[in-house]
């Protein structure tokens, strides 16, 4: 099941050229771009691992593409996203984030039900991927 989070996730995967243009747009707006990766695609997992520092003073998207190539070499079988952070006063938050790399197979989520008192039920979603220990997911 293809996960859809961040911008452009309902579109076909962006090509490197398209990623470059999006990243250049972010840089031209003065946002600091950075890369993050994870092997736990749960929508509530907002804290992904950082790949290096946010790039605050690189005027060209080639810098991010260079790091993306490096990141793919190491974590090419995991989710990688571009995060564009706006540091201007009043915003100080992420303005754009989109997935730029996915595992070959995305096993999706199962629904877990929990019986509670008085025939109540609780539902939660669990990613099949996290059944395996970190490191062997998507292997």
């Amino acid at each position: 099941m293809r996960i859809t989070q961040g911008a452009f996730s309902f579109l076909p995967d962006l090509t490197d050229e398209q990623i470059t243009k999006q990243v250049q747009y972010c840089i031209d707006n003065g946002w600091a771009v950075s890369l993050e990766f994870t092997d736990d695609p749960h929508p509530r997992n907002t804290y992904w691992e950082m790949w290096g520092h946010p790039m605050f003073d690189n005027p060209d998207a080639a810098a991010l593409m260079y790091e993306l190539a490096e990141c793919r070499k190491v974590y090419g079988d995991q989710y990688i996203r571009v995060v564009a952070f706006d540091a201007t006063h009043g915003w100080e938050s992420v303005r754009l984030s989109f997935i730029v790399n996915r595992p070959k197979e995305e096993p999706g989520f199962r629904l877990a039900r929990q019986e509670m008192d008085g025939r109540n039920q609780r539902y939660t979603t669990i990613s099949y991927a996290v059944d395996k220990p970190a490191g062997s997911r998507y292997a």
Partner: protein
Amino acid sequence: MSDVSTEDRPETAQAVDLHKEFESSGVKAVLEDLDATLIGLAPVKQRIRETAALLLVERARKQMGLAHETPTLHMSFTGNPGTGKTTVALRMADLLHRLGYIRKGHLVSVTRDDLVGQYIGHTAPKTKEILKKAMGGVLFIDEAYYLYRPENERDYGQEAIEILLQVMENNRDDLVVILAGYGDRMEKFFESNPGFRSRIAHHIDFPDYSDDELFHIAELMLRDLNYTLTPAAATALKEYVALRRRQRHFANARSMRNALDRARLRQANRLFQANAGPLDAEALSAIDEPDIRASRVFRGGLDSDPEPAA
């Protein structure tokens, strides 16, 4: 001027297109600016013109669907101190940007300190950080031979060189690297790092300025600062140039800049001491003979030097 060299390229059949291209891309403006504001340096200007012509032709070929390959644009500038290497590098960034070979046209100027780390594992991230900053523009490495220190085999400079070479090869479209330094030491540097020599297509040598050119440079510097030379001061300055060249630590245009800075100092002091009532703009901007003649260059060189000037 530069039109000639552009039309002399093999593709004379498309000379009209190239000419139009030359005008519209703003390259002409850069080259004219180069001619007007950089004195001397004829071989350097020639090489820049040739490079511009090559890039224009490549671009025209691309537009016509002919086979084309992004030429390697990494360069090495060699020459004595003060011959304008940094200035030309800055112009080069502008030129390449106008020709569309680099996307941003900024110049990142670094030395060994910016590339090489202080402990194990520090160099690679530091070098990569700089390279990323320079992407889309020009990376100018001043005194590049300091990167390689053969006397210390554990020196981290070698690591920076390896990363540099790798990026120069793989990210040729993303950045242009210009190495600069004094001729003989660069030669040694290339000898011990053959990978560098083969990856750099353009070796440009900056000649020393003649006395006449140095005098014109000084005039130009003064004009930019809104100063004028009195005729007597101009004569003195010409003599100064000839004398200064034969003394130690001569650094071409940089020596002229320093000499002018000191002359301005003396002029300010003279005006202050004379205390001759209200001064007009002309008096404030005129550098007179005594301001130049007071230099110790006329008295045989640097006073502080224990040995006599060579």
